[in-house]
């Protein structure tokens, strides 16, 4: 069988790798670490990005905010009628939301006032949602329910300090369970009337407006028309929202890679060192092999195997460890930098989306150059006449 020759050469390659056991194990470990880190980042940021895409494509097509002197301000609700008149707009709804800092827990909550009902049969919501005009009831995220100093659950009372220094109490009638945590962990949903009372929001205003456009292709046109009619408004497109998340995870990945630069550079130096010269010992070994009858192609094949064994082993181990790290161990090593931190942190299981394209690029940027850097310097040694081994 014609394969036997190649397997024999592979046998010898493995034998000579084992001869320099510590050096080669060291290389494999550094190499594995590089692959592990980079692919961990790829797995984690791709997974987060995919989740953002999947979830946020349900966001309003356009959010219209009002600006005064370049700063965000409450928007008048009479704008709604005008915007409804723009062709392509199917509906406009006001949004009432803001933040509430709880000094006891030292955490920010997001407070949302709703003016319409919904989510009656939602399986992620335990209990029910406040109805639009109901007073002193709230639905809260599981994150808040768990983090409050005194554990809250359905039926407990939540106290919030209103803008006029009075305390308002809310009966917890619903909880967003942790499956939805990535969108709801810090939410407190109350009725629109309660919200306005809590923050003393004037009548006929809203935080901003959600504009629905049924034809995707018309979204930018509608946004442009809104901007033309109301120069003090700022339409935010859903695509911009998604793009922001791409960018957020992008710069966070970049941050980690920067932190990781030291190891990366060490690895590049290692590969460079290999690529730029053979040790005298390696040169002599090549000379001996040629002198006793190996062809140039046999020597190069041996070097190919050497590069392949080291880089493939490292690549596979690195990828497997990265997968386990990200999707079984919750990205414990990277989470602080990539996922962000906070007092109320949703406990979420990452969805194992795998970006084969990026993995393939990673492979072609590591395995291929490594093999090349083992073969190329041997090239010169293996095409020169082997008579050097006759001397000295």
């Amino acid at each position, binding site marked *: 069988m*014609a394969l036997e020759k190649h397997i024999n050469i592979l*046998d010898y390659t493995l034998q*000579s790798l084992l001869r320099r056991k510590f050096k080669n194990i060291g290389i494999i470990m550094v190499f594995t670490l590089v692959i592990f880190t980079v692919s961990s980042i790829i797995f984690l940021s791709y997974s987060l990005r995919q989740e953002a895409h999947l979830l946020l494509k349900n966001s309003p097509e356009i959010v219209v905010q009002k600006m005064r002197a370049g700063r965000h301000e409450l928007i008048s609700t009479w704008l709604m009628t005008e915007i409804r008149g723009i062709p392509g707009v199917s509906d406009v709804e006001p949004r009432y939301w803001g933040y509430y800092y709880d000094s006891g827990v030292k955490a920010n909550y997001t407070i949302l006032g709703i003016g319409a009902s919904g989510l009656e049969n939602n399986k992620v919501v335990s209990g029910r949602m406040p109805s639009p005009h109901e007073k002193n009831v709230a639905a809260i995220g599981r994150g808040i329910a768990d983090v409050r100093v005194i554990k809250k659950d359905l039926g407990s009372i939540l106290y919030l300090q209103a803008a006029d220094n009075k305390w308002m109490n809310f009966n917890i009638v619903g909880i967003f369970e942790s499956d939805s945590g990535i969108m709801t962990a810090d939410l407190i949903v109350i009725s629109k009337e309660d919200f306005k009372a809590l923050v003393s929001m004037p009548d006929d205003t809203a935080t901003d407006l959600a504009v629905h456009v049924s034809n995707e292709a018309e979204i930018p046109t509608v946004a442009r028309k809104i901007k033309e009619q109301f120069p003090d408004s700022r339409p935010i497109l859903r695509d911009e929202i998604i793009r922001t998340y791409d960018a957020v995870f992008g710069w966070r990945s970049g941050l980690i890679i920067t932190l990781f630069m030291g190891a990366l550079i060490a690895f590049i130096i290692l590969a460079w060192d290999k690529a730029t010269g053979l040790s005298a010992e390696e040169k002599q*070994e090549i000379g001996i092999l040629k*002198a*006793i009858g190996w062809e140039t192609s046999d020597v190069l094949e041996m070097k190919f195997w050497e590069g392949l064994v080291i880089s493939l082993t490292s690549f596979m181990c690195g990828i497997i460890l990265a997968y386990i790290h990200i999707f079984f161990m919750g990205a414990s090593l990277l989470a602080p930098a990539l996922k962000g931190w906070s007092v109320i942190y949703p406990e979420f299981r990452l969805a194992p989306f795998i970006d084969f394209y990026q993995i393939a690029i990673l492979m072609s940027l590591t395995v291929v150059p490594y093999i090349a850097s083992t073969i190329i310097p041997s090239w010169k040694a293996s095409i020169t006449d082997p*008579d050097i081994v006759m001397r000295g």
Partner: protein
Amino acid sequence: MIKTENVTKYFNRGNPDEVLAVNDVSIEVKEGDFAVFKGPSGSGKTTLLSLIGCMSRPTSGRVIVEDRDVSRLPERFMTEVRRNTFGFIFQQFHLIKGISVCDNVMLPVLPTDIKPSKLRKSAVRILENLGMSGRIDFPVQKLSGGEQQRTAIARALINNPDIILADEPTAHLDTHLSEEFLSIMRNLQQQGKTIVIATHDPLVYDKDYVSLIIEMRDGRVREIIRN
């Protein structure tokens, strides 16, 4: 069997450190010869040996091995001739450290489509013939000098070559081991192989079975003696 015609070899031609190592050498070694290249250090013996053994090419002149002009062969064919015709025994043995005696002996024939079990069988047979049966899986760096040389001989024999080339084979051996080496070579000659040894050791070239002595000095042939 081996012929050189006006072979000249320069090293570093055109540079200030140019050396004329072999100068206009024409010799002939016949099949079954026990030939010795004799001469002081630096006289060009090793260089001539490597030219004959297809390890390097002459600057001018021709080298003919088994009726083939090898001096202008492309690299691949030179390797082929080298592998199929010659067995080399180097002055420093040049065994690969860290692997066993048997693996060293099998090395020349690894890049062939023969199963390793078969290769091992022939390696073991050769080693046994050389009295190395107790050292087959021994790491080479732990061998004595004589054993290392016998491993090197076994490695030279694994291709079943027609011609054995040895460079200063007795330089690192005492008299007893040198005699032993020579008797092995004599044995091989009697089996029909051609032996070529480069040496300045009288113990070698004074042997009565040496059939051809080529004495060299400063890269030139000084005297050819046929017994």
